[in-house]
């Protein structure tokens, strides 16, 4: 396949960035999107040029570090992570625009690498969960109804990649926040700190400068883990309950 890449180059967090255009002639449709970028970088390195910085780690869709905006869609046209996206999803001869996540709470460090630590700080603000330590408890010592376990599991699938924020027209992190809140909120182990946790995390979300949710739904459509929009409703419900208790 022949691909023309229009990709964001930015030397540092403070430097001004711009798009650079590269032509790739021998792209295999079986390459992942990141492998295609590896090929680009090998060529740049061989020519003595600075390779394009992008994030990746597991390359199997579980770590969440590989987010890229591909032709205006977070993680590209498929419902998956960028590392699990393959070049066969692109058109031969296409010009592909690649940008980092944009948002004042997720700023560019270099090229297409962004600082997602604001998301970590939201999780940190959630604090601790009271669990007994010592010998591992029996598997069924704490019963969890199936429906709740399933929902907690769906929410726990969040890999904190930031695609929801990247896709949101308001640059809001509510889907992420909702997933984290629902994950622990559905489980018995999450109950003691439930109210305090949601309030602290929501406050951190706002303090980080993320936008406010207007329920447009781009986040859930971009989520590689298919986390549903109803976790945002759950978040609002928990917040309402906590505030009613004066927290």
């Amino acid at each position, binding site marked *: 396949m022949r691909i023309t890449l229009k990709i964001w180059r930015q030397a540092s967090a403070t430097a001004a960035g711009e798009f650079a255009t590269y032509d790739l002639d021998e792209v295999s449709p079986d390459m992942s999107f990141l492998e295609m970028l590896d090929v680009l970088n090998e060529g740049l390195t061989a020519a003595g040029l600075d390779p394009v910085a992008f994030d990746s780690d597991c390359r199997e869709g579980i770590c969440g570090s590989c987010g890229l905006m591909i032709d205006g869609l977070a993680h590209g046209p498929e419902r998956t992570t960028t590392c699990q996206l393959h070049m066969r999803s692109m058109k031969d001869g296409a010009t592909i625009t690649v940008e980092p996540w944009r948002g004042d709470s997720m700023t560019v460090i270099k090229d297409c690498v962004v600082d997602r630590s604001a998301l970590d700080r939201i999780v940190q603000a959630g604090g601790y969960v009271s669990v007994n330590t010592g010998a591992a408890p029996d598997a069924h010592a704490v019963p969890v109804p199936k429906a709740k376990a399933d929902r907690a599991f769906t929410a726990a699938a969040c890999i904190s990649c930031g695609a929801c924020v990247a896709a949101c027209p308001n*640059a809001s992190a509510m889907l992420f926040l909702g997933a984290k809140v629902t994950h622990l909120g559905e489980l018995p182990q999450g109950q003691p700190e439930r109210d305090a946790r949601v309030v602290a995390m929501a406050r951190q979300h706002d303090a980080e400068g993320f936008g*406010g949710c207007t329920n*447009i739904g781009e986040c859930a459509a971009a989520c590689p883990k298919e986390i549903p929009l*109803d976790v945002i*409703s759950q978040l*609002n419900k928990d917040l309402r309950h906590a505030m009613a208790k004066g927290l």
Partner: protein
Amino acid sequence: MKIVMALSGAFFVLYVLAHMYGNLKMFAGQEAFDSYAFHLRELGEPILPYEGALWLIRVALVGALFAHAGSAFYLWKRANEARRTRYAVKRAAAASLSSKTMRWGGVTLLLFLAFHLMQFTFHTFEVGGSFLGPYDRVYGAFQVWWVVAIYLAALGALGMHLKHGVWSAAQTLGLTSTPRAARHAKATAVATGVVVAGGFALPPLSILLGLI
């Protein structure tokens, strides 16, 4: 804890409640129009003075409008500040037309509101002649095709605003935590938009087409 209450709560809760409240005021009837308009003014008598209840409602409406527009512009500003560097290419994967037009659609509604009040409440101008009673004024105005066209356009905008707004409010109030509840909220939102826009569109259309 109070900060969250103030920051997110202010736009979560107040916003939603105040505006839904403001909106319900729109469901006024059209039959027996003059006597209805008159009764509006003596509503609550003798406990309240003439036009007392009407003024209470008007004050609440203006308050709701300020709260609504205020929080809308606040959200708008926050969204802009949350992403000052824009995408070069951005495509929407799921956003409905209604959800994307909430802000400019809302501003359109505000302009329409001004037009509407000047015409029928303050009588700053009258279209299609000069009239004594409300019924005649409405009847006369809607003989004019472009007045009807403006109203229909505004109602279309309102229907779309409500379609996303009702759904969004349910979501913001945390009433849609199960897929089933979410489906119901969506259906309610669509129904609200259609019923409100359709219901309001009936009188002007009927008058223009000579059915009334």
